[in-house]
């Protein structure tokens, strides 16, 4: 069995977890094995996730090929603690006799799997994009910010993999794809995890919610308007922000913009910022360094607004408008307002 760590919000499964499940199902199909899904941190008790949410999640996981689902709760995993969460994940992987453990390459997924890899004495391959061979297991993974792929042999008895965000398109199992896929009612377990006290010293003390720091809004946005050095200054974002507002999207900026102090780091798109996959990315005044392209290349459609027709951001886009963004964006905003009446 392959164990997959899923990140959920209520009854909703993170898109990146569905991508990881899709990746895992392909691998499981080649190995003739099945999929088990682990959800950790559902509350102070294992009853805090209600039956309807559990059923809904289990149905979603079944659609993606899972035959077993384990919900793990309890006071020791009520607050995020990478070591305790990883211990709970490792328990499941051992009980299910898994030889592969997979999560999406999110900050949470990566941190937990790094802990799990140590505990399982396993090789870990981060940011995998495909499996090249099953025996021995060789995966291809993103390195150098995604501009280069590394084919890597993962030759420990248990393999630990994270799947690069948006490298795989999430797709439910087709009927008959594997012997177990499409099963209507996967086996559901509710497990209370009691953590080793040594693990709990790493527990998060508290979370300070701040609307400004909501990177989830950026990574989950259907439309992102990107802004780069071409905007010209910290006080020059009004038109761009109006476009964000008119499209109901999120603002994402290049690294140079945060380095210059024009906008905060949590808005940064790129290798050391957020990786986004919106339906539309409008890149305004962004030249398109490799590190930035690593963060936005999963956008379904990219539009570049740039004065340089040869800029990498333009050549990597599907559509482009050439010229001064401070002339073009107000005209776009005006056109959007006009058509909406």
């Amino acid at each position, binding site marked *: 069995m392959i164990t997959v760590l899923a990140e959920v919000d209520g009854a909703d499964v993170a898109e990146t977890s569905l991508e990881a499940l899709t990746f895992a199902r392909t691998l499981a199909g080649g190995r003739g094995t099945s999929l088990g899904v682990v959800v950790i941190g559902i509350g102070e008790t294992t009853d805090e996730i209600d039956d309807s949410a559990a059923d809904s999640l289990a149905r979603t996981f079944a659609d993606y090929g899972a035959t077993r689902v384990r919900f793990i709760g309890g006071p020791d995993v009520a607050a995020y603690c*990478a*070591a305790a969460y990883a211990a709970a994940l490792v328990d499941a992987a051992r009980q299910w006799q898994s030889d592969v453990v997979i999560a999406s390459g999110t*900050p*949470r997924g*990566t*941190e937990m799997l*790094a802990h799990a*890899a140590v505990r399982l004495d396993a*090789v*870990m391959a*981060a*940011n995998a994009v495909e499996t090249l061979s099953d025996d021995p297991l060789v995966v291809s*993974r993103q*390195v*150098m*910010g995604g*501009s*280069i*792929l*590394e*084919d*890597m*042999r993962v*030759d420990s008895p248990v393999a630990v993999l*994270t799947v690069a965000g948006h490298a795989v398109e999430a797709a439910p199992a087709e009927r008959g794809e594997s012997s177990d896929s499409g099963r209507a009612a996967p086996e559901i377990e509710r497990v209370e995890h009691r953590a080793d006290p040594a693990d709990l*010293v*790493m527990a*998060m003390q508290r*979370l300070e919610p*701040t609307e400004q*720091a909501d*990177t*989830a809004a950026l990574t989950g946005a*259907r439309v992102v308007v990107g802004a780069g050095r071409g905007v010209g200054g910290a006080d020059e974002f009004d038109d761009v922000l109006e476009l964000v507002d008119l*499209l*109901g999207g999120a603002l994402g900026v290049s*690294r140079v913009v*945060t380095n210059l102090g024009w906008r905060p*780091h*949590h808005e940064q798109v790129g*290798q*050391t*910022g957020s990786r986004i996959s919106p339906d539309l990315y409008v890149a305004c005044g962004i030249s398109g*360094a*490799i590190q930035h392209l690593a963060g936005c290349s999963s956008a379904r459609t990219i539009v*570049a607004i740039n004065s340089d027709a040869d800029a990498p951001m333009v050549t*990597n886009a599907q559509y*482009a*408008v*050439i*010229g*001064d963004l401070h*002339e*073009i964006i*107000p*005209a*776009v905003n005006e*056109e*959007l307002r006009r*058509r909406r009446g």
Partner: protein
Amino acid sequence: MTNVLVCIKRVPETSSEVRLTDDSMDIDAGYVGYTLSSHDECAIELASQIAEETKGTATALSVGSPDAAEQLRGAVALGCRGAILLEAELGQFGPVDIAAAIAAEVARRSDDGEEFDLILVGNDAADTGDFQVGVRLAYLLGRPVAMGISTVEIDGDRVMARGVAGAGTEIYSLPLPAVVAIQEGGVDPRYPSIPGRMRAKRMKIEQRPADVTPSGSGRVRLRRSAPKPSEVQILGEGPDAAAALVDVMYEIGVVPR
């Protein structure tokens, strides 16, 4: 007084075209510059700040080729007072080996009476993107670890570590000694001062072979991502193209009704 060890890595500067060696096992060093990743730059800044505030020390360490002396001197110019180079052929080293080499050096120094209260590493290496050296190091040393941290401050015998996550700022309070993996975004790395540069120039780097038999990285080969052919459709120039751009937005269905 907090003694900080900051672990840094010399990495290829990948903002321009990257070429591979003939055997496809590495980046062709003849065609790239080398630098530090932005995570490591922020880790050096935080190490220097803590050393200054607590009247402790900041020491930089790198595992790699003798060329990594350049990055270690850079760290000294930015406030580190010592520099250690553990010589290794990085092509033979995976994250397990890097963590083991650092842990062996920390243990060796501890035996000699030199303790590091806090070890900072970059959250991931800009080249290999392994995301695990800090965690593996922490387990080898029996220390707590936090990843994705933007700022740290010492509070008595604990380190307060903050990192921005999806829903806000996460705060961890770890007992020292600890390992913290630093993510870019919490501090602005300083520019090296002239006295700092002079100190870096004179600094004798402690240099010795990494004390580990490497198990390897599992690398089979490197290859380029398949280049996407440029199929850009120029909608026009200047504000006259606004209507065509809005047409595209309607076509792909992203304009709120």
